[in-house]
């Protein structure tokens, strides 16, 4: 009875050993047939419980099989080791086959550049804040020193929201710039203030390669005692250096925006021609990247910040322009038409 069991075990074991091809499998074979919990070990341990007549024969046979197992194991081990280089060669792969593809998405280039801009200014102590895209005319224009009929309003072709007050006014619009966030921040907090506000803006504008009716801006504002135009220059020079690299030239020239005084336009030397003049820069050698200035005293007064005590600077920049310059994108409409063949390049 038990002897039969041993024979069956032996034939199965040798069978399986023949199929073993590597040392991991060999170890599993050893545990199974020679280990503490193996059948053979069980049999050897339980010899004492067998009838005396059987005990001798079974014991001898079991020990014989055990020795045969051990010998075969040693032999197999040896042969595996000898055959290793060969079998490794047999198992070699065509490593030039494509890897298994993991689907990976990408952030929109606008998001990427916004993150980059926000990181740079966060590093200079500016906090990211946001404001509504549908805005009161008051915040978009009036509080920014542009009362009704101010000629500068013509610089901002406006999309109005279809809502009229009883007086027949149309007080809501889609913000034409991120500057209203300046007012919202100053209304709610007291100096020192240091914020940047990224977001969508809208213009009533026909689109072409350089104009979109919806685009992104980043607004910046710092208000405190003793903030000067020199600080604005330092901050924006540093920003341009971090964004475009240290080699760029930066130009500060006088410009006009109703909500700052003095006003500044900041340009960098043309990335294409390096300042010699080309089509991209309109032969000027310079590319405007942002408008800025010292916050106008009227703007401060309106939000109850005393311009005799506090001063501040503000700046605003178009966002899409930056990747357009950096990657040589010649049509702004590519950004929001969302062709994956375009988006996946970033």
């Amino acid at each position, binding site marked *: 009875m038990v002897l039969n069991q041993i024979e069956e075990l032996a034939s199965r074991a040798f069978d399986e050993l023949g199929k073993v091809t590597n040392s991991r499998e060999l170890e599993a074979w050893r545990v199974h047939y020679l280990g503490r919990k193996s059948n053979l070990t069980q049999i050897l341990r339980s010899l004492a419980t067998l009838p005396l007549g059987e005990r001798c024969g079974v014991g001898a046979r079991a020990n014989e099989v055990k020795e045969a197992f051990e010998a075969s194991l040693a032999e197999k081990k040896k042969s595996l080791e000898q055959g290793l280089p060969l079998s490794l060669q047999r198992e070699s792969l065509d490593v030039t086959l494509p890897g298994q593809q993991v689907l990976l998405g990408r952030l929109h280039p606008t998001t990427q550049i916004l993150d980059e801009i926000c990181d740079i200014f966060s590093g200079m*102590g500016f906090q990211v804040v946001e404001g509504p895209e549908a805005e009161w005319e008051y915040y978009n224009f009036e509080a920014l020193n542009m009362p009704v009929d101010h000629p500068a309003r013509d610089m901002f072709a406006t999309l109005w929201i279809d809502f009229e007050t009883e007086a027949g006014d149309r007080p809501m619009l889609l913000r034409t710039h991120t500057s209203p966030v300046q007012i919202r921040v100053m209304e709610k907090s007291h100096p020192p*203030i240091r914020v940047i506000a990224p977001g969508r803006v809208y213009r009533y504008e026909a689109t072409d390669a350089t104009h979109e009716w919806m685009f992104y801006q980043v607004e910046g504002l710092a208000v405190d005692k003793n903030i000067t135009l020199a600080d604005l220059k330092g901050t924006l020079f540093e920003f341009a250096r971090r964004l475009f690299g240290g080699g760029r030239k930066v130009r500060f020239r*006088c410009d006009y925006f109703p909500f700052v005084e003095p006003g500044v336009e900041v340009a960098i030397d043309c990335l294409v021609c390096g300042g010699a003049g080309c089509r991209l820069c309109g032969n000027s050698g310079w590319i405007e990247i942002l408008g800025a200035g010292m916050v106008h005293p009227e703007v401060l007064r309106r939000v109850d910040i005393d311009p005799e005590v506090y001063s501040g600077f503000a700046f605003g920049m178009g966002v899409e322009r930056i990747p357009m310059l950096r990657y040589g994108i010649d049509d702004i409409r590519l950004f929001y038409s969302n062709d994956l063949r375009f988006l996946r390049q970033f």
Partner: protein
Amino acid sequence: MKVSLKWLSEYVDITAPLEKLAERLTMAGVEVNETQVIGAGWENIVVGKIVSVDAHPNADRLRLATVDLGKQQITVVCGAPNLAVGDKVVFAYVGAQLVDGHTGEIIQLKPANIRGIASEGMVCSEKELGISDRHEGIMVLSPEAPIGAPLSEYLGDAIFDLDITPNRPDCLSVIGIAREVTALTGNKLHIPEVHYGELEDAIDSFASVEIIAPDLCPRYCASLLTGVKVAPSPQWLQQRLFACGMRPINNIVDVTNYVMLEYGQPLHAFDYGGIRGKQIIVRRAGEGETITTLDGVERILNQNILVIADKERAIAIAGIMGGLDTEVTDDTTTILIESANFNQAVIHRGSISLRLSSEASLRFEKGLSRDLPLVALKRATQLMLELSGGKVARGLIDVYPGKQQREPILLSTAQVKRLLGIEVDVSEMVKVLRLLGFGCEQTESSSQVRVNVPWWRTDINCTADLVEEVARIIGYDSIPTTMLSAPLPIHKSMPMLSLRHKLRSTLVSCGFQEVLTYSLTSSEMMSKLSPEPHLMGLTPIKVANPMSREQEYLRTSLRAGLLSVLARNERYMEGGIRLFEIGKTFLLQEKDLPQEREMLCAVLSSLQPELSWQGKAGPVDFFVAKGIIETLSSRLKLVASFEASEDEGLYPGRSAHIIIDNKKIGVIGELHPKVSEAFELTESAYLIEIDLERLLPHAASPKKYQPTPRYPSMIRDIALLVDEQRIYQQIHTIIQDSPLVDQVALFDVYSGEQVPEGKKSLAFRITYQSATHTLTDEEVDEVQQQILDRLSRELGATLRA
């Protein structure tokens, strides 16, 4: 605005090279867009005089012109009708570069033989010289033109094309630019002096002016000339107007335009004969009143438009365009010149409501100085007298109800330093301001001056304005760069920013491409989102002045934008499209700004991406989409549960609410086939929509740390037989909520052979764990039995043998 450098140099010496001057103006706020050099290519082109004109022996229409060029006389063949002996003309030698009169291309002049007569050279038209489009005849120069002189010396010029900011209407004039050049270079300014003789008869006997709307017309000045002869302007005047982009008309109109370009004050010349009742009345137009303007168009006016009228009718739209009835014609003999100041808003609104703008209205709507009309009127009167003959009536009309007193502004060195961060001493400050025409007086303090703003600077109202003047003239380049030094303000945490960041980065890792779609959409787009052809539940907000029907409404959901992008990209992508957008939707609120709700929307095409040599991946189905939600919630350390939902845009029975902490925060599901069809999608797609405002409160709270287990866990697998329609979620909850259970994972769902009809088998792997001791088999057996009892009691589940 275009400015001729030749003209400019009449008022200020230009000593710097053009490029340098352009750069300095640009840096100081007067941006030079382009510099155009006239006559740069005029080599081998000179002034000549026609000494004889003879018939061509072989052609009726051609003639032979002999031109005196000083050193020699040359006879050429010419077809122009206006050849006249004695005229000074432009002669091009062989080799000159000219514009072809017919094709407009640049050609080089070659010797020619025209109908048997050799012709070496050419008498040129303005078009051939590239000065204008005139090609009807040859260009006739003024009699003073020096014979033999190179044309580039005689007529050459450089034109600055300037961008003038809206605060500086004074710079919309040659004199304004001359003032800037003076301030930047220190070169002296020469303003023309004005004198002229007058008649005995006073202007009052010819006309009177009444301003009925003094709020809209602060000042009205006029002069009058009798016995004028209307004729073409002299060449120098025509040339200047051309150079500045205006067309010459006649000596009267040209003078008004010339003085507008020179001083920046728009003027208007009336044919006095057309003014009825000898009276000018400045008033609001009547509702529906009409006038035919100079361009021949009949305009219907309203009360918000200001008109210049006589006793009977409107004769001009104030500040915008004159009327046809009082237009100066060849028969005009008496001229009334208007030089007025109009309220900028009324001109701006009038121009918008009439959809009519002019050089005049563009200037008036920026707000001009009230001191300017009189200065410009005197200059125009003088020029008109010189150019048209006639006599000037004695005196001027000057009705000035809007006279204002301007207060001086105090400026101290401390204020300059406070804004610029640089020390500028008083003497430097005063020097700069005086160059700009400001008056500076000493005050009690040696570091402060009292500044009187010159009349032409309407843009200067406060100290900061003066600081900018100082800064732009000393140059922004001379201001140092410093970093903000004050202590940092306290930063508030911005949980939405960090939530958005986490969601974006997780979705990108899951293969989703971020897109950004327009915030405005059409009603047609929105109606595609539901199988019923009505708008999706929410009322969209309309734009009052949409650019097109595609951009008429603020979006109430991100779905339409995303699905259109999916459809468009399906045309050239073979499956595997996963898109998401995080953006604002706009919901109507009573009498308030729209509520801006930030949403996340993602779509997955059901088609798998490109083939792999390792075998095709399984299909994208509901549970792939659901896995994305589970990944997102896991990223936020939240557990999402799901509850079947009905959403009119989604496939009935294949959509669910996403629930976090018992709150519905979004939906997930397969697109309704009709929606798919409406967007022309080629494959079915899955949609995820999460309201970030609802998710935020759950995502923001930090979770407490859990110690890592110190004792081994024990794993048991069980297979349960349950009714086919039993919902997994209930079973899972019962197991998960039992004591010692750490994790429950479903690893098999089976129905078919060996499973009774109407039943299914669910196999779970349960991980038991205690925080206090090593578990024993008996302990786990007992808990597991309790679980099985509860499952059997509450859900009728049995252990599968």
